[in-house]
């Protein structure tokens, strides 16, 4: 029986590629509003775990529950509609669309008008597009991207591209946001800024956030609880300060 304030409940999740058990018996329980970290050495299965949670891969075993609802084996778009959005380790923006349109694609399922009213530019088209523009601009403002709204996504500097990915994910109004190495490639100052942005959006949008990160300063700074993966298996879990003191974790991951 899942606790009422648990948002994501993962039990015995496993997947094999050939003979390799990339994720082996993963258990996770993330509370509503929590900022949770998933860490581990390269190749530990973190991104594979994300791909399982978002339906890119189907698990061989195990159950994923979001807000009490079983979402195991659903398609990516259904899982997104159920309330999980994500960003990617290697940025995946719609590079030839404008920054604004990237976010508006994220709004796709929340607003609607018929193809006919679009082609004929009927009032419903104008009205809904206006609402979408307004909502998208609000999101861009949160990330300081409003001034770049009409640039192509590929024209943005690297750090802003990462932010735009988060904005696009947030546009789908998720309950759970998965961030795959949000600070990768950022300098210390940008990372600092990102940390405050992440906590800010968590509070503003009532989010629960699960993130993969290698930057220990960021992990120690904002994550409340951690799970450490090693060779696909859970090595340790618990509150951030405890886990980071765990000698096994230090040996496996942080170095002697």
């Amino acid at each position, binding site marked *: 029986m899942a606790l009422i304030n648990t948002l994501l409940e993962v039990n015995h999740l496993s997947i094999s590629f050939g003979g390799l058990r990339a994720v082996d018996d993963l258990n996770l329980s993330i509370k509503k509003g929590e900022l949770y970290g998933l860490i581990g050495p390269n190749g530990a299965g973190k991104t594979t775990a994300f791909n399982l949670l*978002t339906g*890119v891969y189907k698990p061989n075993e195990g159950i994923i529950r979001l807000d009490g609802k079983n979402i195991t084996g659903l*398609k*990516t*778009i259904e899982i*997104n*509609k159920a309330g999980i*959005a*994500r960003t*990617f380790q290697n940025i*995946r*923006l*719609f*590079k*030839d*669309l404008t920054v604004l*349109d990237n976010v*508006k*694609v*994220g709004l*796709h*399922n929340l*607003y*609607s*008008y018929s*193809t006919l009213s*679009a*082609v*004929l*530019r009927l009032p419903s*088209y104008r009205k*809904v*597009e206006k609402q*979408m523009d307004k909502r998208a601009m609000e999101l861009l403002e949160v990330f300081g991207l409003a001034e770049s709204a009409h640039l192509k996504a590929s024209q943005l500097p690297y750090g802003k591209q990462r932010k735009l990915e988060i904005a*696009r*994910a947030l*546009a*789908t109004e998720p309950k759970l946001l998965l961030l795959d190495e949000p600070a990768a490639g950022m300098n210390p100052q940008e990372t600092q800024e990102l940390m405050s942005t992440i906590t800010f959006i968590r509070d503003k949008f009532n989010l629960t956030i699960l993130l993969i990160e290698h930057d220990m300063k960021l992990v120690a700074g904002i994550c409340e609880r951690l799970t450490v993966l090693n060779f696909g298996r859970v090595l340790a879990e618990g509150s951030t300060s405890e886990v980071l003191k765990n000698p096994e974790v230090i040996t496996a991951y942080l170095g002697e």
Partner: protein
Amino acid sequence: MKELFKKNKDTLITLGIVTGAYIVIEILLKAGALSSLFKGLLVPLCAYIILAVSLNLTVGILGELSLGHAGFMCIGAFTSAFFSKITVGVINPGWLRFVFAILIGFFFAGLFGFLIGMPVLRLKGDYLAIVTLAFGEIIKNIINVLYIGRDSKGLHFSIKDSVSLGLEEDGQMLINGAQGITGTPKDSTFTAGFILIMITLVIILNFIKSREGRAVMAIRDNVIAAESVGINVTKYKLLAFSLSAALAGVAGVLYSHNLNSLMATTKNFGYNMSIMILVFVVLGGIGSIRGSVISAIILTLLPELLRGLSTYRMLIYAIVLIAMMLFNWAPSARAFRERMVAKLPFFKKKSAEKEV
């Protein structure tokens, strides 16, 4: 109103260019300044423009290479010509029949786009190109062995020969295999072509700027990311592909109602045609609708204008192709063009705006 103009500036410029070209040609026609050869080229030119613009929806907006576009044009041409032939004298006036013919061409080409798209769009890149090429040829070849006749007992079908239809003495051949359809009413006019181009442009340009158009472009740019934000990839791929096919069908209607005898040959509905349309699209700029219109016009008229040079005609055509390609896409040529444009007073404001 001003805001409305600003938002739709690109669309309005494109429509303006087409309207301007139409008016100029109409004036030349009225003045009798055009050769009969040129006049004969006007309706096919309109069809080519529609084909290029609609193929750009698949190639530029959806980002999938299709080499079977002429196949969909073929379906539009034959279904509508068949319809017009059996309803001549039944549906009056003529323009109303033509409107129905256009809708039928649109519908059937779109339907086949949907049916063929379902299995084919699972493929990507070169594989998709080859399979669409094959489907285009299949369509053409099936129509080449199709015999349909009509007598007092109703319609007769055969895929063998005209004799096996077993028509009565007074029976009428409607589709006669490789000889195709003869006696389609000549409903296509230059003005009808112009109107259809405008409708096609409005449909495609407005579609691109809609919620669904954005979804299609998102799929083009990154399928995995599009799925992650809840875009139904199969649905929007099929939508764009079917719409593109349906509009190619409209071009087919225009093309077939301009000919006395409609035959499905390699030249008009085979891969030659598909490749030619693709050349229009690539040359005008993949994803640039206006570019497709302009390159379709230039490349259709060029061989005719060069006819006087007889043997060197195709050589010059090839050189112009290469030169245009360089002018459009070579980085140094693009930089040069941008500098030139920045010097013009009209565009100065525009480039200043961009920097803001």
